[in-house]
């Protein structure tokens, strides 16, 4: 079957409703369609991104000058706790799961997720979790012991509220349960619902990363949710798991917490790497270089991710094992392999600077910094000086903002025409990219220097004679630029949705299966499927008669099970 064959247009396939005639609001509230749920994931997560970004702006405003101007200790402690918690648990993880929801079934030629109702359940827990988390402010003050909530500080009451931390725990139990259900759903979908011919080694890389991510979630998140319950018992029912005054062990929380939260870093980064691995080949007009190496590197990162958690705890003096240092150094290797493969993918290609590609290249250039400055922290000797300073704040933001957020935007610009049938405006996209790129580096690069100068994180105030003021002011200006950079993006989405004309079904000339169907796809996703003989079924169909291309591909390819 050739790609040129006429396919039913979106208009012809109706209004994409499983039950036509229902009120649109009811349709969205009760839908089990993975595409609608995916969209709701994305919208909900992006909303919390803006909220958490606002909290960050408050922090940067306070830190612009020494002394306490706007937010005293009590409020400031709530700000960084809620910023971290919201960004990680309500934005990055669900945002990437949202892309997974929409895209994974399409990439493997399935008509929905394996458990559509469970899928709806995992989504609806998220807005609820957000409301529970922020309802702390109604009780006098939000959670305040940092997103890590180390006991025994987290066993104490927050300044304004005695139950804010319990609300934090309840919200994270909801997010955790949602993640676990989502993980089960993705694994089942990917293992069981692939179209004929879609062998494991023909799946697009984004689907692969969602699979590995889901395995990480399934192994790590239950451990974390159990720890949350232990903390809840300690706080409310007289438990003594973490309180040494009652015979508990304080550091135990850190072991459990990081056993989850380090793999969680890969939960937050691997799918973004998957997005990049889908975007770079399309805009270089080449196949991904070293497909199998990519898959093994992803699996390797996932496996090693479970043996490095204690590098967060070198300063506790409880885990000074060379083992954790060695493993942490080692995890740089598969990441390095990926970098060289990404570069080789662009090598001798035809690189096209769309907004999606700019954000993908932005990911490469920025995530590299997060990988390199993280290497310093793998050595306990260097880590003793740098941990819990702004060096670490810089590192986490180069990984999660320079990595994940750039990846998320690459995905937004790349798949927006799939969601809506319309491309986002490229000009506004480029303005967005450059504003964010400059703002991001102004905000987070000077933090390396502040860390070396000894500025600890999580402080509302610093002493003027420490000479930290100038760098903090640069950072505050940078953060303002990041905030401004979201304006062209939001305007872009608004203007594009209002636009009447539609773009081609496959505007990027992409080759993976999600671009075979209409944009947006019908409720049942595919009217027909092409033959799948490699990870680029659309490319094969287009160049079926092009012997030169084919010979080249078959002599050097390693892809595709035979």
């Amino acid at each position, binding site marked *: 079957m050739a790609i040129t064959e006429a396919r039913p247009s979106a208009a012809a396939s109706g209004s994409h409703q499983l039950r036509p005639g229902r009120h649109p609001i009811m349709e969205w509230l009760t839908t089990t369609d993975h595409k609608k749920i995916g969209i709701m994931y994305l919208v909900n997560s992006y909303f919390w991104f803006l909220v958490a970004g606002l909290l960050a702006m408050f922090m940067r405003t306070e830190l612009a000058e020494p002394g306490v101007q706007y937010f005293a200790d009590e409020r400031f*402690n709530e700000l960084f706790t809620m910023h971290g918690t919201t960004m990680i648990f309500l934005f990055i993880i669900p945002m990437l799961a949202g892309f997974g929801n929409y895209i994974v079934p399409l990439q493997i030629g399935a008509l929905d997720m394996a458990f559509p109702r469970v899928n709806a359940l995992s989504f609806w827990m998220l807005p609820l979790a957000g409301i529970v988390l922020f309802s702390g402010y109604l009780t006098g003050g939000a959670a305040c012991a940092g997103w890590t909530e180390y006991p025994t500080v987290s066993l104490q009451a927050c300044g304004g509220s005695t139950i804010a931390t319990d609300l934090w725990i309840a919200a994270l139990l909801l997010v955790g349960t949602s993640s676990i259900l989502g993980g089960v759903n993705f694994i089942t979908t990917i293992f069981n619902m692939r179209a004929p011919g879609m062998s494991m080694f023909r799946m697009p890389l984004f689907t692969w990363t969602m699979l590995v991510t889901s395995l990480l979630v399934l192994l790590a998140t239950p451990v974390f949710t159990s720890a949350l319950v232990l903390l809840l018992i300690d706080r409310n029912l007289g438990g003594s798991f973490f309180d040494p005054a009652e015979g508990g062990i304080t550091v135990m929380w850190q072991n459990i917490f990081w056993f989850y939260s380090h793999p969680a870093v890969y939960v937050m980064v691997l799918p973004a790497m998957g997005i990049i691995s889908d975007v770079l080949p399309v805009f270089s007009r080449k196949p991904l270089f070293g497909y199998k190496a990519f898959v093994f590197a992803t699996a390797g990162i996932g496996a090693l991710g479970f043996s490095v958690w204690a590098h967060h705890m070198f300063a506790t*003096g409880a885990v000074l094992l060379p083992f954790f240092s060695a493993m942490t150094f080692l995890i740089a290797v598969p990441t*390095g392999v990926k970098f060289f493969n990404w570069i080789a993918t662009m090598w001798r290609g035809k690189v096209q600077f769309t907004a999606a590609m700019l954000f993908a290249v932005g990911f490469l250039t920025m995530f590299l910094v997060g990988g390199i400055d993280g290497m310093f922290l*793998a050595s306990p000797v260097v880590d003793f000086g740098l941990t819990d300073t702004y060096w670490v704040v810089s590192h986490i933001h180069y990984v999660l903002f320079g990595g994940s957020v750039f990846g998320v935007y690459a995905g937004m610009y790349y798949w927006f025409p799939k969601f809506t049938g319309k491309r986002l405006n490229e000009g506004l996209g480029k303005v967005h990219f450059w504003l964010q790129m400059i703002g991001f580096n102004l905000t987070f690069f000077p933090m390396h220097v502040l860390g070396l100068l000894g500025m600890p994180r999580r402080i509302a105030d610093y002493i003027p004679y420490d000479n930290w003021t100038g760098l903090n002011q640069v950072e505050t200006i940078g953060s303002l630029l990041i905030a401004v950079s979201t304006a062209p993006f939001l305007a872009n989405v608004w203007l594009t949705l209002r636009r009447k004309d539609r773009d081609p079904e496959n505007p990027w000339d992409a080759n993976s299966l999600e671009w075979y169907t209409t944009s947006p796809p019908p409720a049942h996703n595919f009217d027909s499927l092409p033959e799948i003989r490699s990870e680029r079924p659309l490319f094969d169909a287009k160049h079926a008669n092009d012997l030169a291309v084919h010979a080249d*591909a078959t002599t050097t390819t390693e892809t595709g099970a035979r």
Partner: protein
Amino acid sequence: MRPAQHQAGRRTRWAAGLVLVGTMLLAGCGSYPGVTEQSRNAHDLYNLMFVIATVIFVLVEGLIVWAVLRYRRRDDALPPQFHGNNLLEVGWTLGPLLIVGVLFWFSWQAQHRVEAETPNPDVTVNVTGFQWQWSFTFQGEKVRVEENKPPQDLTLKGTIARPPQIYLPVGRSIHFNLQSRDVIHSFYIAQFLFKRDAIPGQTNHFEVTIEKPGTYAGQCAEFCGLAHNGMHFTIKAVQEAEYRRWLEDRKRAAASGCPDDPTPGQIAAKQVAFDKDCLATQAGKPFNLKFDNEDAQPHNVAVYTTEAATDALFQGETFTGPRTVTYNLKPMPKGSYFFRCDVHPSAMTGKLVVR
């Protein structure tokens, strides 16, 4: 050698030289050197990593930018569709593996040196973190604080309003034992390039030898609740003789009730801390204690016989500031008592000396 080749060779050497000089310069403005013998290990290792990191950074960013610019789309022809190259991929797996292997080896060796401890250190300081300050006990430096009790180790306790400044001798091995009374704190001195957590229920320890005299700022680095950023302290590294003089001075002060305080009958509360940890009055006379609460939070002053705070001699009215109240305490017999704010029993404590 033909001229073209010669020129190419010279260019390569130039480029290599530039990269080398550049990285050396960058390494120079990397982490500033520490002031302890141990911190030299961290500093050297940091510089080694910084040079390697810079080379990797320049190489990889260069490749990315080169690939993006050199291969930007100029026409619609299909580029060569190659899928991989096993030799290259093995190469760029083994290369990074070798680099991290070397780094781990150096790091491991340095860790042995940083963690090393002498069997009989010259000075032992027991540090206790609490919400929200530090106390320093100089082990073996006995002082008789109260007349009828055995001498105790000299202890200096800070408040947020008056952060402690302690002296330590240069060129001597100093052993720190770290404990916490409530939550996790972290004992961090930036110029030692080192920190270690003070954890409730666990004693941590480390050893340093300060090489350079100077005044070094310290601060709690692990978030520990409301007034986390008030946990400052200062270490003054001096010659042995000056350190001994300072110790004797502190001991004399500790033995004489409230040292250096012209108004031992007044106390203020600010930012959930008392401005002093010592009050004094005369035995057998009524004591009018002026308490100035500057916080918009409830505080009081209560006096107990011991730190266990079981037998109260006096419990002042709890009130919210800003307001000043004068408490009238009945005459007390000679001795040393314990006072605290009943609302903040771990953060706001001190000693009442009746002589």
